[in-house]
């Protein structure tokens, strides 16, 4: 059974909806900059969504942001756009979401009271700590009454949410599902990645030989997935088709990717097989491309193993959005659909020199008028988790 994508929604540092994101991608306007909202001592660049929590709440018609994590507000905004874009009736639709640190944006502040051993502690912010909190609140907010799940597999989380939704639709367990993921920028993750020494103190340069690390970002990206029968019956319009996917494990190291990119290689190979296409059929690869020395080298090797010398157009959009962790797979799935819709490839900003060992050169300018038949979107994470999606013209 075909699984079709009938709606997309996104919020990131480069825009609060699909059209704003497209505008920035077209015009090479990166979202990286000084941190404005997160209270941190670090002077690192990051890709914050340029809205306060109250502005986010107002944008989706909530009277106040009180009691909501930023994670939940970002997810509500993007999921609402996806649902409205598709025109589905939400009633029986399921909701599969993903994130890496739940409502940590509130917990880490409340934790300061616990650490200080204060006599009176306001524990209420911890009620939004669980990863599932945002999933439940978005489902209730949008009236998505079907199956629910929350996935947390580090940086591949939301691509995996899309996989589960697709499998359930293929197997007739659901007709329509909203799937994707979210993460808000937190001190916890900023300090975590900083302690790993993989944050670039300058705007990141994915796939460049002189890359120094990643910039963290935040945002959410969701797609509406539907069975062909369901879409036809309600007279909806398919934006794209999810034609293949795979999840594998690198089984090399808790945080580092193997030099030969085994996990990514297996994920891409199996996703292509599932889509019943060959590497030559791929028009564009939206690579994971975080900008760390390790990821880009490893992913390059995996690409060379798949495509050999016939590397398709590819780019990392993380130079625009930063690495949005649990949201990355969802945001990039939305960008993949936008590439198909617009017949375009988004630029890999700030690339100058190819990685010496691989020589791979990404697309550096916005390119229009391309026939995009199949997009391969990679998401690779801690714990060796490797996911590839094939998004195709419907």
């Amino acid at each position, binding site marked *: 059974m075909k699984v079709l994508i009938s709606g997309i929604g996104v919020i990131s540092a480069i825009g609060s909806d699909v059209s704003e994101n497209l505008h920035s991608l077209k015009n090479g306007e990166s979202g990286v900059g000084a941190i404005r909202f997160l209270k941190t001592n670090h002077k690192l660049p990051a890709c914050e969504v340029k809205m306060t929590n109250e502005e986010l709440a107002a944008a989706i018609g909530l009277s106040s942001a009180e009691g909501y994590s930023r994670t939940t507000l970002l997810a509500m905004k993007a999921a609402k756009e996806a649902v409205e874009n598709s025109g589905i009736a939400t009633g029986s639709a399921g909701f599969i979401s993903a994130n890496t640190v739940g409502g940590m944006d509130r917990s880490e502040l409340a934790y300061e009271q616990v650490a200080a051993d204060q006599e009176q502690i306001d524990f209420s912010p*911890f009620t939004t700590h669980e*990863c599932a909190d945002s999933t439940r609140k978005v489902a209730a907010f949008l009236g998505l009454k079907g199956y629910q*799940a929350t996935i947390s597999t580090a940086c591949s989380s939301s691509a995996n949410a899309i996989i589960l939704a697709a499998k359930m639709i293929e197997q007739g*367990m659901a007709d329509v599902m909203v799937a994707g993921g979210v993460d808000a920028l937190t001190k916890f993750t900023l300090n*975590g990645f900083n*302690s790993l020494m993989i944050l670039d103190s300058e705007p990141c340069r994915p796939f460049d030989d002189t890359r120094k690390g990643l910039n963290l970002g935040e945002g959410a990206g969701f797609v509406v997935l539907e069975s062909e029968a369901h879409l036809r019956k309600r007279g909806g319009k398919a934006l794209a088709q999810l034609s293949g996917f795979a999840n594998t494990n690198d089984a090399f190291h*808790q945080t580092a990717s193997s030099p030969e990119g085994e996990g990514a290689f297996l994920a891409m190979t199996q996703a292509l097989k599932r889509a019943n296409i060959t590497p030559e059929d791929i028009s564009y690869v939206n690579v994971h491309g975080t900008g760390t020395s390790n990821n880009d080298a490893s992913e390059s090797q995996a690409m060379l193993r798949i495509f050999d010398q016939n590397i398709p157009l590819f780019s990392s959009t993380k130079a625009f959005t930063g690495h949005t962790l649990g949201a990355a797979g969802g945001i990039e799935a939305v960008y993949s659909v936008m590439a198909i819709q617009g017949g375009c490839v988004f630029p890999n900003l700030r690339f100058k020199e190819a990685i010496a060992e691989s020589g791979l050169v990404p697309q550096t300018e916005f390119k229009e008028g391309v026939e995009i038949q199949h997009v391969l979107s990679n998401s690779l994470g801690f*714990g060796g988790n490797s996911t590839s999606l094939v998004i195709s013209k419907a």
Partner: protein
Amino acid sequence: MKFYINGSAGVSPFLGLGEEACSIPEEGSRFARESDYKQVINPRQSRRMGKLLKMGVGSALVALKNAGLEKPDAVITGTGYGCLQDTEKFLGVMVENEETLLNPTAFILSTHNTVGGQIALFMGLTGYNFTYVHGAFSFENCLVDAQTFFHENPKAQVLVGGSDELTPTSLQVLEGLDCAPDQQFGEGAGFFSLSAEKTEKSYLAIEGYRVKFGTTNDESVKQMISDLLADCDKKEEEIDVVLSGTDIELAFPNAETIDFKQYTGVYPTAISGALLLAEKVLLGKASALIDKKGVERVLIVNTHSDEGASCMLVGKC
């Protein structure tokens, strides 16, 4: 869908890792029983591991050993809270040192999919590896995913498990929020090696399960149980024991109803502990906790405020 259980292991307040029989949880404590992890994890590796990792990875490895399985085709884990100990450790130093001089180890290990990732690393597994974090229904998410995996790979062996840890801080927070009045919090891990087809190792079966989300009431939960019994072609009379994790009063003609949380404690993936307990009841290894003998079929019911409800039927095969 019916799942055959080919091996299992777990840690709980009522069971230590690798122990055959259940014992009464120690008075006043709802921490999982101290266990010997050296049987499967060498001390050099376990030194860095937090409690959740030890409980989860330890249980997974023993479960696979019991199933005589070296390489499961998929690893699907669930946790409501994730690696709290490492999360707290990192947060604590971050607050104390005002964001300086941080060691990344605790951060690395704090990721929710660390248990699944470490199982893959330990056993060199390059296959499907998912982690569900959907609160009180994280383990049910795992079963649904296992079902989708078996649908595509009918001969597969899938490792599923739930784990959550209780730490002094999480206990302080949970008590501060009054999350489970009149109940004790708990922790534990329960891992199960499953197949969709009966193998020579199969000794019990999850005959069926149901899960629904959103607000539930007495009527909808009872309807869900009737639907499950219909799915499995079983009658109410055929239930011998109900392991109940719900306030809803459930009475079946021949069943003894037991609140499983008095043994597992309250935690998001407690239903994986209830499944361990169901196994022990069916295998006659739970006499310290439950008098009933000759049990053929156990119904497990889990409800959680307005989040949803699930039920599972477990029997001999």
